[in-house]
């Protein structure tokens, strides 16, 4: 099993904020839910409670940016952009304020149902000029998210995992650099966030069924290194599959479609994710199965892409544990 890490954000944020006095910690009444309660208690001078009032918080953060501070906004992902979209645009994105928006519980990682699930945030942020988008997929990425975000000359939106999570990688986020997890040449799988672990499990089963997998993990979604991605697309004989904790429109599936169309690549693309639907409340494992976001959905998607049955069962997938893939990843110097 991969090592499980508990609450990496809590420590990472404290470390970063203490080393950077112009970093401020903003919260909208979800302080412990975003793992910054200890920070609030220990460093009250660097903490601002803004209450359950997200619209004000966004424009306020823009004002802090004007004063030379770099505010880190903490709330659930949905509350960062749905209600305060206008404030986000006018007060933060347009003037390129150095506001670091930490959106917790991305996609279906919350049981809170429609109102709590940020399933179209990447789409919204991708269409927002000046916005950078980062997404974390494991403990190491959460540990490095504050530094990565704070290195951006402008606003940045981050999908942040909380609580207990596996460590899949042993090097920090390098903004703009995708991770090459496996380098086969039949199909290309592109994932981000929690779907990467699923794809790692699927890869093992797929390799067992004779499919050579090239798997890339994205932690930087915007801006995007299209040239490198194009090389990867051209390096596989078959097509491309994306699996995302997001709707299939506007996220990384769309990103791949754009790159392929822009460059006249005549390959098939299978976009897996929430297929033009809202989700509802439930456990993460249940929702990933119900909405087709797990390893099984990925292997089925690859079967469809390849037009052949691979005979991979749930059993094969549960046996394909992440540790084996982890050591492979190490061997490749990730």
């Amino acid at each position, binding site marked *: 099993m991969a090592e499980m890490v508990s609450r990496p954000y809590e420590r990472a944020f404290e470390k970063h904020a203490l080393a950077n006095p112009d970093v401020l910690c903003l919260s909208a009444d979800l302080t412990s839910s975003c793992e910054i309660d200890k920070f609030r208690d220990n460093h009250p001078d660097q903490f601002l409670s803004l209450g359950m009032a997200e619209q004000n918080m966004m424009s306020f953060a823009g004002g802090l940016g004007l004063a030379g501070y770099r505010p880190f906004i903490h709330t659930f992902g949905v509350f960062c952009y749905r209600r305060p979209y206008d404030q986000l645009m006018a007060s933060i994105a347009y003037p390129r304020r150095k506001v670091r928006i930490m959106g917790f519980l991305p996609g279906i990682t919350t049981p809170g149902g429609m109102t709590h699930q940020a399933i179209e945030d990447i789409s919204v942020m991708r269409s927002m000029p000046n916005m950078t988008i980062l997404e974390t997929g494991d403990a190491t990425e959460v540990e490095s998210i504050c530094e990565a975000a704070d290195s951006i000359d402008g606003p940045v939106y981050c999908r942040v995992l909380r609580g207990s999570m596996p460590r899949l990688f042993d090097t920090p986020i390098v903004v703009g650099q995708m991770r090459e997890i496996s380098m086969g040449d039949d199909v290309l799988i592109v994932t981000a966030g929690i779907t990467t672990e699923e794809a790692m499990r699927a890869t093992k089963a797929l390799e067992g069924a004779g499919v050579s997998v090239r798997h890339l993990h994205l932690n930087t979604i915007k801006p995007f290194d299209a040239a490198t991605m194009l090389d990867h697309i051209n390096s596989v004989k078959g097509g491309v599959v994306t699996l995302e904790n997001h709707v299939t429109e506007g996220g990384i599936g769309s990103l791949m479609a754009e790159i392929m169309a822009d460059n006249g690549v005549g390959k098939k693309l299978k976009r897996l994710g929430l297929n033009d639907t809202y989700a*509802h409340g439930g456990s993460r494992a249940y929702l990933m199965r119900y909405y087709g976001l797990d390893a099984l959905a990925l292997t089925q998607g690859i079967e469809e892409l390849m037009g052949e049955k691979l005979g991979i069962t749930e059993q094969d997938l549960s046996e394909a544990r992440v540790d084996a893939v982890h050591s492979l990843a190490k061997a490749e110097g990730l």
Partner: protein
Amino acid sequence: MKNEKTTEDIALGIRRRVFEHAMRNNGGYLSQACSAAEQLAWLYNEELNLGAPTLPMIPKPFEGVPHADNPNYHTGAGYNGPFEADLDRLFIAPAHYALVAYATLIEVGRMAPEGLEMFNKDGSSVEMIGAEHSPGMEVHNGTLGIGLSTAAGLAWGRQKRGETGKTWVYMSDGEVQEGQTWEAIQCCAHHKIDSVKAIMDVNRQQCDGAMDSVMEVGDIRAKMEQFGAVVAECDAHDLNAMRDAARTPHAGKPLIILAHSNPFHAMPILEERFPRLHYVRFKSEEERARMNTSIADALGVDPIDYEGAH
């Protein structure tokens, strides 16, 4: 539907059910049962004019979200009876009070006790954060601050059609921090939407703790009156005061009842957790056991046997 139990009994029953649930699940929205039980009991047992439920006593599983491919989609409003011109409607604006609202539906005979067993189970419609397909819900309100506006729009439309039914909103005080709440009051006043009635659980708590430590909201009554509402106040655990408050005339304006509640009413041991009452998760088996004994005693029931639960 006629009321077979007293409102006091229903409030006690709500607390007992929420308590049992929280014990078995090692935590939950327990404090909301302390603060809100009388308010919801009073709404359902006395104040609301509702027809008989139109949906099955045992809730159906989740049947999908609204979509063109899901023509049979319906909300959970049927637990509050049919939509008729003379009948009332109710929105639970703070959707995390769902557990308390479901317990109320059971106590007033609108849902079977099995419904609560389905709470927050995968594939169930009885969701932790009340969804619009959850029992007793008509719209999604998990994003706080939208309930009063939706009610205002529905009420305006109903008034225009000559309907006499009222549109009630159950609100939480955290919602006054959201700007939209004030926009809604201003709109009700401007358009003279006086069929909107709200009762707000003023427990002075929010996720981070006591509201005064998170974002002071000042004199809610004075502010609401300035925005154009008629405001009545009552002790949230004094049913006569609540009944009186609801009789406050409010021609041409919305009525908002500020029900000042105690977030550990009837479960005094919860005070130990003050000011972190929003979601009570037991910190240890010792605490769970101690709270079990104490709250059971306070509510006049046997301690819950939660071995074998999780």
